[in-house]
């Protein structure tokens, strides 16, 4: 019997990744259909509701775009670190750190003019997220400590900090004993563009654009890409790896913090325990699907936002929210699985590989 095996292509298939994403969506829809049928629902009705709620009209688009903003920024944070081969798993905590910093500014600057307040809040968010990444960045750059572990563990620190603040010093006395911080003053809220879509969209778009250009066209980004492709090549050409690691991880944390600030002023309006809402972890998925390219993050975040909003909307039809989570998971499985085939081909045993697996005489 001929057993199939995978063999690396000389170059990835052109257009392989969008195709992989489409295949992933198709697989997810198919599995979702089976799932919904099994649970006794009408898939057509469910799917049309999902589409209606996420992309069917300006109001739906506004909700989806508002969701895509934190997803995109978190995805960008992970992707920027990823383009140098680093894994920032701490975006979730950095989002919280950013939201805390922005809330703090709103508390002390409640009587500042709106524009100044919002700008300072967002800068503070940037700094807060970056600050949380400084420790892992130094540990990785100077001592080689694995950044996956350190960034991941700081998530716990950030969530406890939020909990302490909203149960303790920042607790809103008017919130009937719910653990919530007070509402932001009105002038601390981002204005809207249309329907409920807020200016965070423009902020996220600008940050993603600037980052993509920086990675693609600046000397800084060039060194980043060299280091991400091969550390030995970077050393050989005289690029300081430790300084690069340090700056990239802090910038990554800062962008995630900004996501927290934008989410606070644009959507949440107050610091709550669920301010980061899993965006930091979803950002890893977004970045992975965008192949760690900052330019791909925007598109993936938009599609992912639509799937999330659509998934939430069907709860009113009696479908468990787990179904939407399962659908998201299958989009991911499908897309990553299909992505493998843009880089590998399947060979039956006995066929000659294009690239020898191991030429070792």
């Amino acid at each position, binding site marked *: 019997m001929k057993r199939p095996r995978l063999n690396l292509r000389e170059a990835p298939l052109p257009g392989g990744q969008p195709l992989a994403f489409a295949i992933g969506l198709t697989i997810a829809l198919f599995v979702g259909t089976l799932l919904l049928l099994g649970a006794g629902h009408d898939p057509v009705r469910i799917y049309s509701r999902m589409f209606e709620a996420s992309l069917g009209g300006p109001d739906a688009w506004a909700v989806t775009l508002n969701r895509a903003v934190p997803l995109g920024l978190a995805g960008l944070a992970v992707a920027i670190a990823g383009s140098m081969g680093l894994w920032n798993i701490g975006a979730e905590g950095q989002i919280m750190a950013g939201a805390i910093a922005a809330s703090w500014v709103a508390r002390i600057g409640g009587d500042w003019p709106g524009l100044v307040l919002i700008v300072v809040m967002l800068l503070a968010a940037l700094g807060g997220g970056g600050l949380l990444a400084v420790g892992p960045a130094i540990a990785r750059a100077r001592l080689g400590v694995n950044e996956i572990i350190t960034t991941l563990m700081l998530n716990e620190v950030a969530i406890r900090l939020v909990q302490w603040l909203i149960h303790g010093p920042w607790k809103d006395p008017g919130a009937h004993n719910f653990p919530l911080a007070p509402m932001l003053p009105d002038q601390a809220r981002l204005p809207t563009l249309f329907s409920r879509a807020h200016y965070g969209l423009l902020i996220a778009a600008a940050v993603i654009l600037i980052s993509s250009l920086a990675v693609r066209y600046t000397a800084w980004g060039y060194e980043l*890409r*060299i280091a991400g492709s091969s550390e030995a090549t970077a050393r050989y050409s*005289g690029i300081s790896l430790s300084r690069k690691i340090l700056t990239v991880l802090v910038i990554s944390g800062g962008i995630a913090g900004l996501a927290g600030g934008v989410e606070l002023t644009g959507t949440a309006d107050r610091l709550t325990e669920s301010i980061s809402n899993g965006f930091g972890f979803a950002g890893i998925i977004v970045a992975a699907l965008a192949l760690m390219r900052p330019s791909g993050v925007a598109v993936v975040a938009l599609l992912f936002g639509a799937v999330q909003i659509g998934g939430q909307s069907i709860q009113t039809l009696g479908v468990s929210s787990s179904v939407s989570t399962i659908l998201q998971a299958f989009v991911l499985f499908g897309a990553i699985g299909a992505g493998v085939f843009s880089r590998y081909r399947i060979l039956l045993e006995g066929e000659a590989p294009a690239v020898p697996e191991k030429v070792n005489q």
Partner: protein
Amino acid sequence: MTQTSSPTDESQLAVQLSEVWKTFPGVVANAGVELSVRPRTIHALLGENGAGKSTLMNILAGVYRPDRGELKLHGRAHQFRNPADALSAGIGMVHQEFRLIPSFSVAENVVLGSAPSVIKTRQIEAEVAAMADKFGLRVDPAQPLWQLSMGERQKVEILKVLWRDAQVLILDEPTTVLTPGEVDELGEILRRMADDGRCIIFISHKLHEVSEICDEATVLRQGKTVASSLDMATTDSTELARLMVGASPTSPNRPAAATLGVPLLELKELSARGDRGIDAFSDISFQIHSGEIVGIAGVAGNGQRELADVIAGLRPSTRGSLIMNDADMTTASPRQRFLSGLGYIPEDRLGVGLAPRLSITDNAILRVYRQQRRGPFIVAAKALSYCKDIVERFRVRAGDLGGPIAALSGGNLQRLLVGRELDSQPSVVLAAQPTRGLDVQGVKAIQDLLLERRNAGAAVLMISEDLDELLTLTDRLLVMEGGTIRGEFNPRTTSRQEVGLAMLADTKAVSRP
């Protein structure tokens, strides 16, 4: 010119491989190899790098499938689909790279993969200890593996194979990780196993070890058997070396070296450690002058790779000093060395010299992008025209310059890399295996570029495993073995054999400058 000892009855042979062919894209690794191994013997498999030894052994161990050829064990034909097949037929291989788990004990490593579903630690340790005793393999079965020396780890690898009841043991260059004392011990262990009825296939480059340890030898050259089952008692190592390296096709029809100028590169008693923390080379001293191309010959793994790393600044030296263009560069960074005139063509082209995931243009500008900046940006037009210039001048066949570098063929990759390094007109050029894996045209192109650089007054150091290349191209030839310079030769007056003997650490080799 195949030499064969007296014919033996086929069914008496423990292993018989006949007419084995194996090709990889662009490489014929085995072209009709013959190998016969008698039971109760230690059989040496000799050959230069690339002679096809490892391929042949990987075929015997079930890792590769031959394109053609027959494999018989005790007269019975076999076809292995995978290493498990080979193992169950009694063939076990001890690879150069150990496949052991540091946090497991010796006994656990030995039974790994063939352990019963419930592991009774005491019982297994006792069984492993008994087996180790039988063959004189002194290891403590309860000791965690990470505490063991390289020599002890090798014993664990051997025990692993014995545990699976292998009757044919293949040892791929087993002595490279051993101290001289350990080599003697290994010889005794192998002899006990042979006396126990097994046979051992021993791959090595070191002729004196082979003479001491082995009973018979088969020599491969360029994928073919040039001598099979030579009796080691009656064959001297000069004869073996002659068989391994072949006749000398030297044809020094090249321009004589220009008059020597000042020394541009000087190593003074330089030493450095390898990846395992052991000295990779020690007390190496030589000078290379302006207008001179010096070659370093040697079998892989004798310190050449580490030497190149140290000269390029990618590995720290432990003693000694390095002078380049009259400046002390012993502790200088790779970039400082580049700025003071070093061009480096690394052995690992896609991992060190080039960034595999980036475009051709991105790779072309690696040395000059700092000069192509305007503000924070790299000016794309400058980068592209620089890349075009390199591609045209060094005849790189490339389609889309924005496309991935990995799409280029090996020869074009190397032209781009060499072109980029020579573009800055370096006064010192270090080229490690610059022509390996290239086709005839590619080899010629790279060699011409290096000669051109030499004629322009640069000092060129070329490290290669291809002895013919070194003999035809260099002005002076140093042989590296065991981390030191074993001899210096004039390639115009030296035969391939003389250099070969020094490379293979034959004691009779003498320096003949």
